[in-house]
């Protein structure tokens, strides 16, 4: 599998199809793999593929420094690939100008990450080249919102208490935003101060406003790669927030971000038949 990856990338670089391969490198086994940018055929050996390849590399596709390197090939897992669907819908990428190398993935992390438990895209679906086969794609896909549903067993008051405790640890390092492939705004709303909609201070007040905003700006866009959660140095479970909006989008509109390139995004469109039980 790794050889095939190396060969594919070497060819792409050799025949000039792409100028850079965005893939995973690793300093030592069983440490988290990190993004590397291979530009010379002889360096493809640096590329690795294993269950430590957590990152969603698509976040680099919209960065000017990476764009400047020329046409990219990018290594994606099935889950990361969903991001491409959204990015294209939002006209951030031109799919024809990107070579997508899809890796068969049974799960990342040991034990596997929460998202992998309910993964249904072990095999990338739209890749230009798909590498490998999934040995044991064990996953009960209906458990997609299990953690959220468990959390919602708490009373609203307890939920409030939980988040006050969690968000109190947020230092506003914005790792959640910066690592997110869909947070590509030129200037984030929290960095705009006329008016100051969100307090920039890492106080509970500022953190609430920030995390509500972050999660909601990803409404019906977040593909659930959970990079924000993984990136958070304070260990805040942002996944729950993403899930809650995703669940609303699925239950109310049967919409799941990144799954079907054909369907129109939920936000920015409407149906006269939309439910409105909560409105009087």
């Amino acid at each position, binding site marked *: 599998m790794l050889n095939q990856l190396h060969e594919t990338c070497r060819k792409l670089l050799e025949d000039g199809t792409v100028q850079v391969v965005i893939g995973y490198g690793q300093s030592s086994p069983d440490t988290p793999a990190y993004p590397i940018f291979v530009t010379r055929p002889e360096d493809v050996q640096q590329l690795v593929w294993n269950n430590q390849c957590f990152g969603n590399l698509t*976040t680099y596709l919209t960065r000017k*420094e990476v764009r400047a390197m020329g046409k990219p090939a990018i290594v994606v897992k099935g889950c990361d690939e969903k991001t491409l669907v959204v990015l294209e819908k939002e006209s951030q990428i031109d799919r024809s100008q990107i070579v997508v190398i899809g890796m068969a993935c049974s799960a990342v992390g040991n034990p596997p990450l929460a998202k992998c438990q309910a993964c249904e895209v072990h095999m990338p679906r739209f890749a230009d080249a798909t590498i490998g086969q999934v040995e044991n794609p064990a996953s009960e896909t209906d458990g997609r919102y299990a953690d959220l549903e468990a959390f919602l067993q708490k009373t609203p008051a307890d939920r409030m208490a939980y988040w006050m405790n969690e968000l109190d640890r947020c230092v*506003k390092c914005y*790792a959640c935003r910066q690592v997110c492939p869909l947070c590509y705004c030129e200037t984030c709303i929290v960095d705009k101060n006329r008016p100051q909609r969100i307090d920039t201070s890492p106080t509970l007040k500022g953190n609430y406003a920030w995390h509500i905003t972050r999660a909601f700006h990803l409404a019906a866009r977040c593909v659930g790669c959970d990079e924000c959660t993984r990136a958070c140095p*304070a260990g805040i479970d942002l996944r729950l927030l993403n899930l809650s909006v995703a669940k609303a989008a699925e239950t109310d509109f049967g919409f799941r971000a990144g799954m079907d390139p054909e369907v129109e995004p939920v936000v920015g469109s409407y149906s006269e038949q939309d439910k409105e039980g909560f409105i009087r």
Partner: protein
Amino acid sequence: MSEVISQQTLSQLVDQWISQGKRVAGPTRVKPDVLLYEFLTAADQLLLNGFIRPANTIKELIFPRTEKLYGYRLEGKQIELYDVEPPATEQIVVGARPCDAAAFPTLDYVFNWDYKDPFYRRLRDLTTIVTLACRDHDEHCFCTSVKLAPDDEGGSDAMLFDLGDGNYEVRCLTDKGKALFAGATQSSDKVGKAGPGPEPSIDLDKVKQFLDTNFESPQWQSLSLRCVGCGACAYTCPTCHCFDIVDEGNAAGGARVRNWDACQFSMFTMHASGHNPRSDKSQRQRQRIMHKFQIYPDKFGEILCTGCGNCTRNCPVSLGVKPVLEAIQEIATTETIETK
């Protein structure tokens, strides 16, 4: 001869401090997979055994992530400014890593240089730091590369050494430290010893040489390419101390607050005009490294890094100081070979 304290007595001591209304902080598990320095409500929350490297640092106790500088009230057409109550509660950190404590002597320079920062000094005076000498280290640790050690005493008021038998040797290094443990220890002939620490992997002189001569190097581009531009490294670094000052309030009034800021944010150097002198992330990564290993040393004679490795540990893409320095070292070597 040495002074020792049993685990049990230490715990009693901690509980006693808490009951005295002091703010006692130490490494603790806030979640199964989240280890942080937090204020403790009971001694049993304190973690001292095994390899303990909290994701945050104790700089927060002395240089808070957000700090009110003064308040203002709007009365009709008048604006009234008022000072904030200075903090008065004594703070004690127990089980801090020496690499966290070692940051403070370095930080003291910048906070007591042309302007003596009263907020910093106040909390510095109120805080007593009890470190625990390291026995173990992980692949990110590199204190030995920045001329520190697993038992570096810088910034510590007292240092504990795990004797492995349920007792700790206590070395009181300052009067604050002495006062803290007065009467709580017994003499013993057991002498604690720190672990060997990581093998030094970085030649700082070589690095400095590169920095002095390579401000415009194209290498910065590749060194910074994978950085996503968040503040995780700076905010979990014991020595990073940049801040931003903002006013927050409404029609009734508000406050001027000082918040942590990080040099990897694209907005960090954004001018009001819209011009950004560090518009490219390679410039920002360069700034971070240069500040720590050239600018600060040139100005204060101290490296702005304790080799704790938190930047890499907390980096979503495992970047941080050590990998960059190692890369620089490699570049420097190959370049010197080429020049030969």
